[in-house]
């Protein structure tokens, strides 16, 4: 717990207070207590008004006096824009209703557009209804690339061949694990890191237990082997001290620590280490001993997805494609090509900062109490244990049964989704990502247990989730929503098991 010290103010408190100063004009963006909606903060206030990616000092959980004043003034200065945004949003919702549209979450779909309209037109004036209607039509444009379009595209023989070649090319030219390591880690590792050996046999020992655990252990002074756990192999080959530093700092800030990890390419090294036999499987990212090149794919079902590294290009993209608002084949080709190349990268992610976050997640997911982040994630499971009893639900609230792996898979999906959308990693993004992934891992398990209890004909026993839950598919990752429908416990499949009952992408074809 970070105590609020003299001269600092919690960012969330400053934002809430400033928001309430904006008055009734922002009611459509506020809850019944007059505070911003979750999506108001995540989709409008943070990325469009505060923009911590550009103003890192405003992204910290605790602000000094100057930053707090600056933040308040930013919000108040945007007051007219925000009130106009609220008015445009209300208009767009009205037009949506008039058109009988029910698809998608209006907040996810319209918030940013309403903000753009506010910028372009100011407050809604005459013709506003028509303008808002046009915007709604544009969001729901039937010509937009859909999951069905994606499938049609990828199953065109010539396209499939070309994508196949792109995958092969990328995989043939994969950076060898040792070379993926940055200059900072190969020679100078003063804190006893276990890194990739120069010969290209990577840090994770063949039995899948040694090196990775040693990284974490060395970083925090725990006796090596005491935390031996196959799940940590993802952290092999990188600098455990830097990872631990990020996990200690990220709740409040962590920008410098993240930058250090990125500069040293620790994420790339840890990701490359997953190519060692058994490592990706131990981390829950693949069912195979060694990850294989992805298929192009002909079918995808959000309820039967294999582990992330085993997903076809179609399976990697179909959930998020319509939210990308692509207009034609050219855009589709770019997205597909990028995905084919991404699959050959360490962690199968393109952005080094994202790899660093996933690496940090693989260590924090150990819940070994060695870092601030790990302790806080662990505390989530303790709270869940109490809430499960208070809600009279089957316990099963321990982080066992593959929950760590589920957490890592979910984190991967979120990071890949960010890459698809080109979302910048904000200053406060690391902890939000880790905490959010753990939270939805826990809550989706709770949902499934709850659904199992009320479903007639089913026992209350918690299905042991050995594979990706529906919420790990990337659907709904455009905003905040998860997409695990209640009662989809059957959506779990063991990693690598053949997708059964596949439906057409998006159920549209």
């Amino acid at each position, binding site marked *: *717990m*970070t*105590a*609020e010290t003299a001269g600092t*103010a*919690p*960012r*969330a*408190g400053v*934002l*809430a207070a400033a928001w309430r100063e904006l008055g009734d004009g922002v009611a459509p963006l506020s*809850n*019944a*207590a*007059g*505070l*911003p909606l*979750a*999506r108001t903060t*995540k989709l409008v206030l943070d990325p469009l008004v505060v923009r911590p990616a550009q103003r890192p000092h405003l992204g910290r*959980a605790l602000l000094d006096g100057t930053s707090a004043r600056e933040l308040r003034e930013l919000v108040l200065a945007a007051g007219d824009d925000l009130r106009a945004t609220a008015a445009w949003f209300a208009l767009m919702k009205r037009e949506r209703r008039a058109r009988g549209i*029910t*698809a998608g*979450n*209006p907040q*996810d779909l319209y918030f940013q557009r309403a903000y753009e309209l506010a910028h372009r037109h100011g407050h809604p004036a005459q013709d506003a209804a028509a303008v808002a209607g046009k915007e709604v039509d544009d969001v729901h444009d039937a010509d937009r690339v859909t999951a069905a379009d994606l499938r049609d595209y990828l199953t065109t023989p010539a396209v499939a061949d070309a994508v196949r070649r792109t995958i092969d090319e990328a995989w043939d030219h994969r950076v060898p694990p040792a070379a993926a390591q940055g200059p900072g880690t190969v020679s100078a590792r003063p804190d006893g890191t276990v890194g990739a050996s120069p010969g290209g046999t990577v840090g994770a020992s063949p039995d899948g237990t040694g090196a990775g655990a040693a990284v974490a252990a060395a970083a925090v002074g725990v006796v090596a082997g005491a935390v031996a756990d196959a799940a940590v192999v993802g952290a092999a080959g990188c600098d455990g001290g830097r990872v631990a530093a990020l996990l200690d700092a990220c*709740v409040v800030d962590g920008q410098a620590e993240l930058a250090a990890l990125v500069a040293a390419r620790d994420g790339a090294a840890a990701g490359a280490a997953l190519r060692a036999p058994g490592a990706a499987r131990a981390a829950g990212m693949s069912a195979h001993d060694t990850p294989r090149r992805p298929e192009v794919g002909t079918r995808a079902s959000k309820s039967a997805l294999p582990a992330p590294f085993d997903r076809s290009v179609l399976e990697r993209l179909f959930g998020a494609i319509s939210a990308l608002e692509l207009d034609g084949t050219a855009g589709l080709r770019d997205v597909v090509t990028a995905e084919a190349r991404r699959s050959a990268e360490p962690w199968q992610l393109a952005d080094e900062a994202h790899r660093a976050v996933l690496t940090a997640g693989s260590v924090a997911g150990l819940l070994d109490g060695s870092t601030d982040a790990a302790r*806080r994630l662990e*505390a989530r499971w303790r*709270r869940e244990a*109490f*809430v499960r009893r*208070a*809600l*009279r*639900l*089957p*316990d*099963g609230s321990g982080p066992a049964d593959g929950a760590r792996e589920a957490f890592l898979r979910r984190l991967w999906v979120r990071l890949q989704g960010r890459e698809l959308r080109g979302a910048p990693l904000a200053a406060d993004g690391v902890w939000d990502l880790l905490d*959010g992934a753990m*939270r*939805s891992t826990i*809550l989706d398990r709770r*949902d499934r247990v*709850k*659904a199992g*209890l*009320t479903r*007639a004909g*089913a*026992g*209350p*026993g*918690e299905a042991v989730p050995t594979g990706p839950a529906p919420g790990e598919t990337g659907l709904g990752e455009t905003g*905040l*929503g*998860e997409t*695990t*429908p*209640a009662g989809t416990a059957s959506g779990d499949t063991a990693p690598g098991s053949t997708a059964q009952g596949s439906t057409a992408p998006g159920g549209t074809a």
Partner: protein
Amino acid sequence: MTAPWRTAVFEGAGATLWWDLGTGEDGVDVWDAPRAAGWLDAVPREMARQVALDAWREAWWPGSRIADVAPLDPRVLAARRATALAALDGVTDDDAAVERALRELAAHLARLGPLATVGPRPTVRPGQDTASGPAGTSAANAEASTEATASAEIAALAERVRELADDHGVVLAAPAPAEAPQPEDYALAARGGPAGGAPLLEGSDPVDPGAVPQGVVDPLGRIAWQVRLSMTIEVTVPAAPVVGAPPAVPLVAFALPADGTPVTGPADGASAAGPGGHAPAPGTGGLAVPLRRRGDVWRGEAAVGPDVLARRPRLGLRVPGFTPVLGVDAARLVEIAREVGP
């Protein structure tokens, strides 16, 4: 915190609020102060309390024929929780809390039919004749105006969640169920007399509501058993009244340890035979009787060894996979329900 079974919990961003419904105490567990600073002082506690109370009702409301507590409609509770959570959007720990509640509601609607067909809200009617009408339509003796008000409330709630679902892109439209939701006959059925002559041994033990999920057994019921000459034990337990089809739960009656220690872990369900089967029961320690729900009674029988006669067994209930919540006081649960209301 306090005893889980009487605690209503609101999971806020960075802080958990709780209310001990037994003692009236409440508290705040701040686990991320900077995050909680966004709402903790700005949100009226009562708003959070309503969400917490409805979650508690879903879990612990002691629907009981014996105590004359009508069951609550899970559709109404989920709908109320969804609207209350929407009022706290941005305050809950789970950013997708509203969608989650709406999806739960959608599942209930798919099972029980649309909210609009719900009768007036069932009420606790202390001291009333237990042979009154079924839940949901039990207001026959109540004022007609009360009924109309309740119906109007349900209609307003249905309208509100319809808008809410629209606003969150959640599809609530449920296919009309093959049959309208049939609230179980709320009245106690006539007890079937024991067959097969006079019992060698008989007894009854109290139900522990914490040992089973919601909606399974009457929390104030007793586990009645008889050992017959044929060396079989027959067990009956009054079922919990529920709205709609009862959840299918693999309920097992078993012999509690002789020393009276509470069962702390999920009991091993492996020794329980399938429904209707006979589990081998060499001694009372291994006694496990799978029960089946028929109407308002759970019933089952199993073979027993002679040692059951030497040491009188004490029976408890378990559901494989369900970890018992310890220390639940059934009578207090009913008192709390009467205080809290439906």
